[in-house]
């Protein structure tokens, strides 16, 4: 169906291409500029007229950034936190999404409504109590579990998986499997899980990027002794030699993992965003 619609799309004239290419260039330029800055010295970046081509200092700058901040630890922390959160979110969301999409049980609608309602609530609303809980009750402040555990229940993730499974798994198939003797877990294992894989991959990717990029909560609950990469970035911009080339190097190092993942998985992410939009 999509294919026929596409064939009937309007052909693109030169104007369309030119405008789109300009848009893409505007999107890419700041990142390109980051590469330029990260491979130059502070003096070169701040010269008039400005330099627009990469220089030769990239590896030296990266070495300096690693030497002056705890970037190795920060990258490892971010990887650990983002990876763990991703696995947990995909798991809890798929399980719960399946229940909400395909199982009938008392309390289903109010529970779902509660989840959807909190999607509207700004994360910041809970920050102060969450910090009090982490610092005073659990003594998790500055520990990675303070970043991981609260992130495991992701309202968006649940909603996303439910919407996907609603359409991706026909009820008839589940009924047939039940008649064949499958218990609920059998349905999940043999019918739902295989069908959910594409959505799980997209949700995983989105979760990974969101967790990797999170700034506010780590700023509150973590310290520079145990930073995530985003915290190290803000440290680079303030406390150190205050050198633009180092700041941009940090920005580059912090962005590379997600950009690499994006280039590999990008098509699926695009599909995911577009499908989510259709159903949401």
């Amino acid at each position: 169906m999509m294919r026929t619609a596409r064939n009937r799309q309007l052909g693109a004239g030169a104007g369309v291409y030119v405008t789109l290419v300009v848009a893409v260039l505007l999107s890419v330029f700041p990142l390109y500029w980051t590469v330029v800055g990260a491979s130059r010295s502070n003096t070169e970046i701040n010269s008039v007229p400005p330099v627009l081509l990469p220089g030769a200092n990239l590896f030296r700058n990266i070495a300096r950034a690693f030497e002056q901040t705890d970037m190795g630890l920060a990258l490892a922390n971010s990887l650990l936190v983002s990876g763990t959160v991703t696995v947990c979110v995909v798991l809890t969301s798929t399980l719960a999404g399946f229940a909400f999409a395909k199982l009938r049980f008392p309390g289903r609608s109010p529970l779902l409504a509660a989840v959807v309602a909190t999607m509207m609530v700004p994360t910041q609303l809970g920050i102060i109590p969450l910090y009090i809980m982490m610092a005073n009750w659990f003594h998790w402040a500055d520990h990675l579990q303070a970043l991981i555990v609260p992130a495991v229940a992701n309202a968006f993730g649940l909603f996303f998986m439910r919407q996907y499974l609603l359409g991706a798994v026909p009820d008839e198939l589940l009924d047939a499997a039940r008649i064949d003797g499958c218990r609920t877990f059998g349905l999940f294992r043999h019918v739902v899980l295989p069908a959910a894989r594409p959505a799980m991959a997209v949700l995983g990717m989105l979760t990974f990027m969101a967790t990797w990029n999170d700034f506010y909560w780590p700023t509150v609950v973590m310290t520079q002794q145990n930073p995530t990469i985003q915290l190290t970035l803000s440290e680079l911009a303030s406390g150190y030699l205050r050198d633009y080339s180092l700041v941009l190097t940090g920005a580059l190092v912090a962005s590379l993992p997600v950009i690499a993942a994006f280039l590999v998985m990008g098509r699926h992410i695009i599909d995911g965003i577009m499908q989510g939009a259709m159903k949401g």
Partner: protein
Amino acid sequence: MRTSTNRTRRLSALAAALTLPLLATACSSSGGPAAEDPNAKITLTVNLFSDFGYADLYKRYQDLHPNITIKENRADLGAHHQNLRAHLLAGSGAADIEGIEIGQVAGFKPQADKFVDFLTKGVDRNQWVPSKTAPASSQDGSALFGLGTDMGGMALCYRTDLFKAAGLPTDRDQVSALVADWPAYSAAGKQFLANSPNKNVRWFDSAGNLFSAVIAQAPVGFYDESGKTVVESNPAVKAAFDSVAAAVKDGQSAGIQAFTPAWDTGFQQSQFATVACPAWMSYQFKANPPADGGKWDLARIPGGGGNWGGSYLTVPKQSKHATAAVELAKWLTAPEQESWLFTEKGYFPSDQALWTKPEVAGHTDPLFNGAPTGKIFSQSAKDLKPQPLGAHGAEIGTALGNALTSVEQGKADAAGAWKKALADIANITG
């Protein structure tokens, strides 16, 4: 979508394989408090707010103590002290050693019991003058929670090449005479701007910085002896504010926020000809030599005297390695290291015995064209009449600095900016 499920499946399997081991380690990553075995391998964390020049000293200390690794973190001055206060209140999150700036130290006095008392750790408080130890002592004076590092005796740093081009004297005694007090400094600024061939060069870097220097010379600043805020009633504050605002109005300020990347760039790109420079600012000059090959020299600060900045090292009791941290803090503030920090890095020691030692008092600094920095800063340290300090001194200074920034930005006049600053200060102290 359908055709790509295979690839997606492989990718998600790969992702799972990559992250599962992480999941396992995440749950076992919390280490318990280590027992204080003097030879156990430990990492000491040091949280500072600017460069204290310690990097080489850490290396030396680690060579002396192979079981110890030292890690330093830095944040903005404001953020650093905010975080420290929050972590003291929370009972966790502080580093093993935390730096505290003198303008902030009064705010930590009520929490003196949350720090290790150095007097019980074999420290003699006579290593410093009373004006340095008093602010870092508990309310009743029985405990000392901060070891003095450096002092902020001030000078005026100026660019000889830019002065010469503008027809101003370049000899440091002549410059000292030219800018004997702040009105004379301001007049010289006018002369400089009128005659400097390069119109991109301003007289000074930042109104906030200049204000810090001017107010540092007042006998009473933001607080009186009883610890009450007197910003509004103390004429010295308003006078300093107005004189800086007037200089800004004359176009003397480059309007660059200090301690930002743009400030460092300003040094490199020669955007200003003078900087009111406390001893600890040397690192800034060293790290950012002018790209055009220009040279800095150092004259007497207009008005003479005053102290701006200087710091302490503290060890919060929550540190898991308090004993080792105390040893490191003591070592870093010991006379040999303090003396080395001055001759190599420019941080003038607060250790009073050093002020008469020839290697300190006789030191000349090639960074400043061989200026006798030892003589200048020793004299200013001996002459120092300390200002009374208060809990929010640094934040008040920041608020007034912000107000002057808005004047620099052309967004407010002196009177309007002053009013806004007072509102900010009420919010800070309230």
